[in-house]
């Protein structure tokens, strides 16, 4: 079975996110007010072959732990969709 995995990776809350901060500070310049925080992470999409959803979940989690995410600075979550 084929699955699509959508991974969201975010910098830890304790970490300063200079990119998000710069975007947040510039929101009023485009006429958008009331935005108090912007944090920028990564969205990764993977297509993978797995026997079932649980197998896909394990593969996705292993991918995150081994390469996609650096646990020192980032946290992650993912969703799985059969395709």
């Amino acid at each position, binding site marked *: 079975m084929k699955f699509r995995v959508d991974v969201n990776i975010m910098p830890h809350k304790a*970490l300063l996110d200079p*990119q998000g901060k710069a975007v947040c500070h510039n929101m009023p310049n485009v006429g958008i007010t009331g935005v108090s925080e912007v944090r920028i992470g990564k969205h990764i999409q993977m297509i993978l072959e797995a026997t079932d959803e649980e197998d896909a979940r394990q593969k996705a989690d292993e991918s995150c732990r081994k390469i996609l995410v*650096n646990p020192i600075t980032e946290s992650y979550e993912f969703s799985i969709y059969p395709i």
Partner: protein
Amino acid sequence: MKFGVVVFPGSNCDEDMVYVLKNILGQQVVKLWHKDHNLQGVDMIVLPGGFSYGDYLRSGAIAKFSPIMNEVTEFAKKGGYVLGVCNGFQILCEAQLLPGTLIHNTSHRFICKNQFIVADNNVSPINASIPLDRVLNIPIAHGEGCYYADVETIKEIEDNAQVLFRYCNPEGHITEDANPNGSVNNIAGVTNIHRNVFGMMPHPERAADEELGNTDGRLIFESLLNHMMANV
């Protein structure tokens, strides 16, 4: 001494490193392609600066899976000396051979300039021969050089004197203004608990040739060599 400089796809400071080790310091040097498995009997491995694998995903995140990294890890675990400069430092952190990691500079800009650093202590081979009041002027050139680790790790490496160098002002004072990239406590380089793996963002190989008008970086290589020669 025999040095092995690892070349990854995207390394761009390998030639400078080879030149300094061979022509300035008179050492034997071999280049080690990242797909090699043979370390050719080197005494020390150097991971040079550059943009291995285009810095994709995170700096050093893909290079850590290069075939030669198995041998580098094994070599380091047996006590072999490994030095990573700039991208090499990032790779060593990703490979968990060094504590912490390097993230985007707080300015979110690539910084290329001369930067003052000072040895934090004299207990590691790479800083053992450098007087603590000797301010070194060493070039930095990085976008992701902000050293980060959690509070517990920072306390641990500071208590164990694993911080090698810190960013400072021309007088040697470690101030916030002298911190170019937002690194925690101005940390510019660290070592592992066994003091045989060294990582630093500044480029000592860019300040070792008299032709370039600055030889402060030579003190760092000489400190390493002094220690290695004494322990042959």
